[in-house]
């Protein structure tokens, strides 16, 4: 295991400043893969790293490798709009997303790594009568679930977000579902913080190591083939988001998942003008302002299967066009960057955290367009499922729920901007 990493602190900054910053260590090691591990996690994104972290922290399982074909957090973890909220309608969703949101609150202290969690509040605009009724229902459901949200009136919306145009001709703002304890975090830092903590516990985070096959014997998983040789394991966790179908095929089962491209974009930086996250689900757009001043805008997903990490231009056009009515001041903003990520969509728009037909092989996928907010909760529950074979947070998210018709239907509740 070697020596533990030095903690980050105000004192460490002063100490390193005094010696011209020559003493900082690498945040995580890059070890060669060993022959075998107790647990292999495929995918070093937020969910995979969080799973490994809680396996070590909560269950003392540290003989773990996290394999990543690209680089740490280079997939959807680094491609989202960093929104954190838990205002879901269904009880199982509210439980896991609220667990995640509450873990985010002290994640920086827990990991000794600043993830810049900013509980600035998340507002979901109601711009049609149907949405008003839908969000009133969600607010009541959240009250029963112990998730703090409330429905606010247009004047309060305007007070919280002065740049909003509440009486647009086509989509006036009729109210909003307000979650004051939602917010944003620095997405890369979440992956980096978990990776550093995993590495510190003696786990091997192995980048540029692509899994090319799953080894099995008598219906049980025994290891994986990778671009850096075969590696054995007792338990395998597949946490690869958009590429879940590819890994499932290697493991010999199918998933109720389709992969599509979801896009986001940021504007040029401007002075602070909006200090909450606003989601406008009727018009398929959501927006927040980053610490750098950029307006971060997320849009809708393409409707066809796609693995290219780039989406269709007309979706950006639709998103921006719709947002301009609600935020007239952004009409002159230049857009700086645009990117896409491959999201794994299930039929009911709820995730899968599940055992699989292959024994000792577990899968965590299907987070679709809402993965970032759930990283700590997903890792917490999935680690418990992998360690104990059962987790109350995960039990409703089995991949076999479709067969039984036990959907956790958030597709109607959350609409597109999930």
């Amino acid at each position, binding site marked *: 295991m070697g020596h533990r990493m030095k903690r980050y602190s105000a004192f460490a900054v002063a100490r390193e400043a005094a010696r011209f910053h020559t003493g900082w260590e690498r945040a995580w090691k890059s070890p060669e893969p060993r022959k075998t591990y107790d647990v292999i996690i495929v995918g070093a994104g937020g969910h995979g790293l969080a799973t490994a972290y809680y396996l070590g922290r909560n269950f003392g399982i540290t003989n773990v490798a996290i394999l990543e074909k690209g680089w740490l957090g280079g997939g959807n973890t680094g491609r989202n709009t960093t929104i954190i909220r838990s205002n879901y309608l269904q009880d199982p969703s509210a439980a896991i997303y609220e667990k995640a949101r509450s873990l985010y609150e002290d994640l920086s202290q827990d990991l000794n790594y600043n993830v810049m969690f900013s509980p600035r509040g998340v507002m979901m605009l109601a711009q049609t009568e149907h949405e008003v009724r839908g969000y009133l229902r969600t607010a009541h459901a959240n009250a029963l679930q112990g998730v703090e949200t409330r429905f606010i009136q247009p004047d309060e919306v305007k007070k919280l977000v002065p740049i909003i145009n509440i009486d647009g001709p086509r989509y006036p703002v009729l109210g909003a579902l307000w979650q004051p304890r939602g917010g944003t975090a620095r997405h890369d830092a979440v992956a980096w913080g978990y990776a550093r903590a995993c590495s510190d516990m003696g786990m091997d985070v192995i980048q540029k190591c692509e899994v090319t096959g799953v080894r099995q014997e008598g219906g049980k998983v025994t290891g994986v083939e990778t671009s850096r040789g075969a590696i054995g394991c007792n338990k395998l966790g597949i946490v690869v988001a958009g590429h879940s179908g590819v890994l499932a095929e290697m493991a010999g089962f199918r998933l109720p998942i389709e992969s599509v491209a979801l896009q986001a974009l940021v504007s040029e930086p401007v002075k602070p003008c909006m200090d909450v996250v606003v989601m406008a689900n009727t018009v398929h757009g959501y927006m927040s302002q980053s610490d750098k001043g950029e307006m971060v805008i997320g849009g809708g997903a393409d409707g*066809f299967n796609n693995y290219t990490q780039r989406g269709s231009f007309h979706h950006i056009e639709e998103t921006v066009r719709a947002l301009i009515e609600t935020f007239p001041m952004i009409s002159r903003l230049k857009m700086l960057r645009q990117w896409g990520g491959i999201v794994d969509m299930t039929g009911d728009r709820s995730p899968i955290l599940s055992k699989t037909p292959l024994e000792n092989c577990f899968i965590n996928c299907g987070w679709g367009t809402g993965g970032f907010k759930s990283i700590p909760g997903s890792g917490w529950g999935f680690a418990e499922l992998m360690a104990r074979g059962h987790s109350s947070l995960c039990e409703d998210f089995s991949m076999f729920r479709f067969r039984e018709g036990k959907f956790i239907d958030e597709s109607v509740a959350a609409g597109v901007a999930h």
Partner: protein
Amino acid sequence: MLILECPCCGVLADETELAPGGEAHLKRFGPGASDDEFEGYLFMRENPRGVHFERWRHVNGCGKWFHAARDTSTLEVFGTYPAQTTEPPRDIRDRISARRPGWTWREFA
């Protein structure tokens, strides 16, 4: 921008003119089917990284459904063909084989 030729009206349509309709050539199951068959038909999808057959509708055009063969990892289009078939026609499969040697038409459950 994705451009597909509608085999019904012959128009080269870009994707704003089209509506995606999901995986093509699903074997349909109804009353009397087993739970496995019904689950497979309703929910399980091939979702390949590579050659994919899918349904499209020329919604802002002639309104007809058709099929397309496409690569989901490169966005290359191998061709489109009418919807009145249960498997891709020979010429489309040949074109895919020329571009993706070793590719095989998969067996459906």
